[in-house]
């Protein structure tokens, strides 16, 4: 019995009580972020802290907000990113000035750097670089026909393309492309130029040539753990052991290993061991592949189901209310429709300042998406009931509640159920994006797979998600057969 309760608690994400203090380590969604975070996490675990990993956060802002709102306790950040994207400082500052400014504005502490500089670089295939005799970024201005594809973040950040184009007077119009896909595109000749990180393992793997930043446009991007000042000093002391511990070569090496298919945990573990930083023989309690899959699927179903049930609990009564008070019907439907048009990733990002990261904002976002299909189908179902039947049900003496319970809802059931089905399928798809804000689920391998440009890993999430969607369809079909007389079903299909 207690075992069952325990598994239920695990499934529901109820944290089991731990002996030590729990530190939540976050990471941004790219290889180096994962590896550095894994190094931080394993080091903390080795020193006796319980660690919760919230990896794969989408972009700087999400990670930074999460740290601010206590969704995470630490994540690796880069000095240049903080200077440009977060603090938006008008001039280059020293590392000490940066630390002071973060303390003053955000009560955050940027610990000492790991020791390597992962700055932005502009890269193209080595062969085309040789062919065109391109050596510096300045040279780029001469080749208008070059196709430039940049990661969305770089494309839009002031310290990214806009500033670069101004400094070097670059006339090209770049397009936005998912970072993980850009290399593939270059290899296949679909793209010529992209932005890379100078420690990127892909630089080796895809044999890219880094153009010289001859006007010293890019600032330094020294990687370091970023924490809130109020973080337990024992935790900080552990993190400070990594000061100057990682060189550029080591980082490129680790990134390349991750590209070759080693897990981030393995890469991090190998590094820590090589440096003699681990005191204990870590016992990695890894789940089996199927166990991981099942766990992810369970998380996924949990997110979807809670959101769906909440959506039903809100949208069906709201639909009934709209049916009874026609005056508000249009507005309610408009608002619900508006919610539906917000791109999922944007909606998830909006949630962070209010609800932090993890399952809560994900469930709330999914709940909002579930509203419209259920609401619309509920009102449609009720409004389209034969008026003769409505008159008769009033005329024979049914109370408002009896009409709803015994006549209107049963007659509307096929359409309402179809709305719930639509919401469920939408939610299963959208829930894959929840991994971007650390909610886990089947989106996790997809997010990591995108970072690694690893199709197999992407499929590891995408295929089960598709199967889940099919199972959902099947479950709802069975429910329909069970709950609704056949002759009413044919009508609902229209």
């Amino acid at each position, binding site marked *: 019995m207690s075992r069952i309760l325990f598994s239920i608690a695990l499934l529901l994400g109820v944290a089991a009580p731990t002996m030590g203090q729990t530190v939540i380590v976050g990471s941004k969604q790219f290889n180096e972020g994962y590896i550095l975070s894994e190094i931080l996490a394993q080091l903390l675990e080795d020193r006796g802290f319980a660690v919760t990993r919230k990896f794969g956060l989408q972009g700087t802002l999400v990670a930074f907000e999460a740290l601010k709102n206590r969704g995470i306790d630490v994540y690796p950040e880069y000095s240049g990113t903080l200077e440009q994207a977060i603090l938006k400082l008008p001039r280059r500052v020293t590392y000490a000035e940066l630390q002071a400014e973060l303390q003053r504005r955000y009560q955050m502490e940027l610990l000492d750097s790991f020791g390597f500089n992962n700055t932005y670089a502009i890269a193209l295939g080595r062969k085309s670089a040789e062919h065109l005799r391109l050596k510096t970024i300045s040279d780029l201005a001469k080749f208008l026909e070059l196709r430039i594809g940049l990661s969305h973040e770089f494309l839009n950040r002031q310290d990214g393309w806009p500033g670069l184009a101004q400094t070097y007077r670059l006339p090209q119009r770049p397009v936005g492309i998912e970072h993980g896909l850009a290399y593939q595109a270059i290899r296949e000749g679909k793209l010529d130029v992209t932005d890379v990180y100078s420690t990127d393992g892909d630089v080796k793997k895809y044999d890219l040539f880094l153009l010289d930043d001859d006007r010293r446009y890019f600032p330094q991007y020294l990687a370091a753990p970023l924490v809130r000042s109020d973080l337990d000093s024992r935790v900080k002391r552990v993190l400070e052991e990594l000061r100057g511990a990682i060189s550029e070569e080591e980082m490129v090496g680790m990134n390349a290993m991750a590209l070759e298919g080693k897990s981030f945990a393995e890469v991090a573990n190998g590094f820590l061991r090589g440096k003699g930083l681990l005191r204990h023989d870590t016992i990695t309690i890894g789940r089996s592949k199927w166990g991981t899959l099942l766990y992810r699927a369970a998380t996924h179903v949990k997110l979807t189901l809670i959101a769906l049930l909440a959506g039903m609990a809100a949208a069906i009564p709201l639909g009934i209310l709209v049916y009874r008070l026609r005056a508000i019907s249009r507005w309610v439907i408009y608002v619900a429709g508006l919610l539906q048009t917000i791109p999922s990733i944007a909606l998830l990002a909006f949630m962070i300042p209010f609800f932090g990261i993890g399952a809560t904002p994900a469930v709330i976002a999914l709940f909002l998406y579930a509203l419209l299909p259920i609401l619309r189908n509920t009102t449609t179902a009720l409004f389209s009931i034969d008026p*003769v*039947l409505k*008159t*008769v*049900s*009033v*005329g*024979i*003496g*049914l*109370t408002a509640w*009896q009409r709803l319970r*015994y*006549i209107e809802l*049963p*007659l509307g059931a096929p359409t309402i159920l179809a709305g719930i089905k639509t919401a469920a399928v939408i939610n299963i798809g959208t829930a894959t994006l929840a991994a971007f804000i650390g909610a886990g689920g089947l989106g996790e391998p997809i997010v990591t797979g995108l970072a690694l440009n690893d199709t197999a890993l992407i499929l590891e999430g995408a295929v089960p998600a598709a199967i889940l969607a099919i199972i959902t369809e099947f479950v709802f079909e069975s429910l329909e057969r069970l709950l*609704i*007389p056949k*002759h*009413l079903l044919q009508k609902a299909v229209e």
Partner: protein
Amino acid sequence: MIPIAFDHVSKFYGSEVALEEIHLAFEENQTSAVVGTSGSGKSTLIQLINGLVKPDKGTVLVFGEPIDYQHLPELRLRMGYAVQGTGLFPHLTVEQNIALLARLNHWEPGRTKARAEELMRLVNLPLGLRARYPHELSGGQQQRVGLCRAMMLNPKIFLLDEAFGALDPITRNEIHEEFLRLQESEARTIVLVTHDLREALKLAKRIVILHRGRLMQYGTSEDILKHPANEFVEHFMDAQLKS
């Protein structure tokens, strides 16, 4: 006791007059028919009795008291109601349709079953149809189920709004016979709205003739046939009985 009475009742839809100054009383345990051309206000009249429509002027009295519009469901349970096109609930079987009101009013199941079967026999519905859905029945059968449902709680008042309107002549005749038989076995006050004067003469003792919302004549069928109150009634009867 006078079961249904209209005390100077008027009803308007916007500036349109639906009924004007209707003042009449229906007699207990008799069938009265309300006839008139379309737009005469006859449907409005019947819907005033069960509170589906509220008067703008005057008072409607049922069971000797003005209608309490705060407690309509209770009142309606004491009045059977059947409409054209049957109004059977498609998601319920024949038996569930007939027994719906008894079930919602917590009748004991044995009593419910016995009453439903009794009614089905009275209107010549084979008991084998109990588990069928309405769409599996003929028009006549559906109409009979509608009658059974309306009479389930043995109401003292029974309102029929063009209830036999959509049937073929033969089926209609059969149902008329069953209707008369029902009335003999369980006498009640019936108000029957129809556009068909012949049906009215066959089924009702007393007849109300409406025209453009005004009461033209109210009397026994003999009265009306022998002494039409005005030119309209005369024309109306000529037109209906000759065709």
